[in-house]
């Protein structure tokens, strides 16, 4: 079902078992936990220096599904996302406590290898950020830094990644041209292809459509639905309608005490939007603030 079709039809509950709809802090009966978890976040706190930006977030990320994190600006959702692939390691003074499980390993643990993890957990950024090289070199980058590979094999993987990102047809005869010559939407799909080339298990998306026009946005959302099943996706978005269109489960965050972001409520998207359990969620969804 394409995104356009989904908008017009009421969304049926996905056949895959959903995580339970619960408020933050509520204990989830393990019987309801039928979905396979790809990742889970436990008691995550994030600090920039002394400032706590995120307080005690716990979240389950079911495998193969699209999980959206929504909330008003500044509520810490990007911080959480960037902590999941440890991009915040690049920020001086950043600290995270708690644990983030990828399959069975805690990626925040002292033995964790962030670099290896980032090949399993890819990221799409708010603004497309292709390297100033050719389209081919962009997509091949992740493969080349992982080791040597014969050119033919490289080319096959590059083509396949571009295909999965629905970009191949548009660029297949100019793979050697600069990536900067593409339009915004194309560049973002290029970045998606770049991320897909290393065959990640999870893809994180930080408001990936905020710099794109509506048509390009819908194309990205279509791609997300196509990838669902094989790739686990977590998308941060300030656009509720997008979350409603695209995701299987949604988490709602809000800035709480001391300007630290907190998780309010999480559950299957349809339920969260139809029957929000927390007053604040309801206010946000109905547009009373944010």
């Amino acid at each position, binding site marked *: 079902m394409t995104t356009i079709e989904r908008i017009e039809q009421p969304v049926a509950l996905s056949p895959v078992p959903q995580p339970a709809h619960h408020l933050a802090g509520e204990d989830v009966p393990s019987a309801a936990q039928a979905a396979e978890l790809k990742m889970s976040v436990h008691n995550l706190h994030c600090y920039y220096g002394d400032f706590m930006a995120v307080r005690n977030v716990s979240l389950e990320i079911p495998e193969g599904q699209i999980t959206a994190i929504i909330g008003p600006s500044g509520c810490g959702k990007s911080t959480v996302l960037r902590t999941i692939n440890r991009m915040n390691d690049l920020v001086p003074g950043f600290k995270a406590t708690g644990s983030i499980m990828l399959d069975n390993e805690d990626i925040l643990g002292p033995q964790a*290898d962030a670099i*290896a993890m980032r090949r399993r957990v890819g990221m799409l950024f708010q603004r497309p950020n292709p390297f100033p090289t050719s389209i081919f070199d962009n997509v091949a980058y992740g493969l080349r830094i992982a*080791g040597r590979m014969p050119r033919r094999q490289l080319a096959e993987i590059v083509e396949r990644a571009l295909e999965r990102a629905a970009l191949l047809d548009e660029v297949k005869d100019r793979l050697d041209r600069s990536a900067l010559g593409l339009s915004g939407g194309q560049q973002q799909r290029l970045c998606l292809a770049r991320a897909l080339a290393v065959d990640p298990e999870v893809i994180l998306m930080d408001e990936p459509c905020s710099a794109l026009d509506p048509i390009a946005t819908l194309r990205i959302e279509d791609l997300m639905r196509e990838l669902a099943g094989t790739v686990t996706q977590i998308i941060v978005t300030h656009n509720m309608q997008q979350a409603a269109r695209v995701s299987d489960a949604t988490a709602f965050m809000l800035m709480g005490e001391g300007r630290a972001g907190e998780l309010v409520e999480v559950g299957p998207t349809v339920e969260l939007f139809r029957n929000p359990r927390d007053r604040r969620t309801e206010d946000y969804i109905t547009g009373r603030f944010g």
Partner: protein
Amino acid sequence: MNRRLRRQNTVAIGVLRGMVGLLVALLVWILVTLLVAGWGELTRGGFYTGVPNIGGPGSGVGPQLFNTVYVLVLSMLIVLPIGLAGGIFFAEYAGTGRLANLLRRASETLATLPSIVVGLFGYAFFVQATHSHPSRLAAALSLSVINLPYVVRISEDALRALPPSLREGSLGLGATRWQTVYKVLLPAALPALITGAIIAAGRVFGEAAAILFTGSNFSLTAHSNYSLNPFDAGDTLAVNLYVFRIQAEPNVVTDARQYADGVAALLVVAVLLFNVGARLLGRVAVRRLQRTA
């Protein structure tokens, strides 16, 4: 495979840091070597007041020190007004039109000229063409040619750094552009301009090639005797170091090495002082700017 990449990363960045460390160590070693070698002369009062007396005891750099300051001051007197005028023009009056671009390009080109080329030009223009002889005035003029693009640039930058509200406030009250510049902008930019002037002075302080061609008398012992006449020739400290090194035979003259070490050390000390001075003034300038903003 990941371990190999990690190791490459650690090694590469380690080598990088090592190279930087090596350079820092080199700098420290340069400063220490020169200061230690020249320490004896630097701490001897007679060094600053005496005159060159190679072959005999107690040589000093009095006249050269005086000349250095003399030529420096003379050059600053010439170049600061002109450079400031140019800087004001670029910051406040010129647009991005073709004329402005041409002027800027000329300034940048002038800035890239080697000082020895300017020295040769200085000889041809300030000395030969005027049918005169090497003089400190000619040296100062040559230094001005070298420094002019730099003074223009720092003046322009100092003015551009001022908040637009200053300009708007003044023009809004009916002042002409020149009045704005003269009464409002220049006073506000003064600390930055002074800092820039100090840095400009530091740049020509160590200049030797240009002065060699325009104001030197190439002699170890003949000196200007503290004369105030700009038409007299005279060596500055840096020129003296060069002339000395080239002309003096260290084996024949016993004091020679010590004397040269002293001159070199003195130059280094002066550079450090300039640096510190400019830095301190820079901080004052920033604070002043934040208050006007």
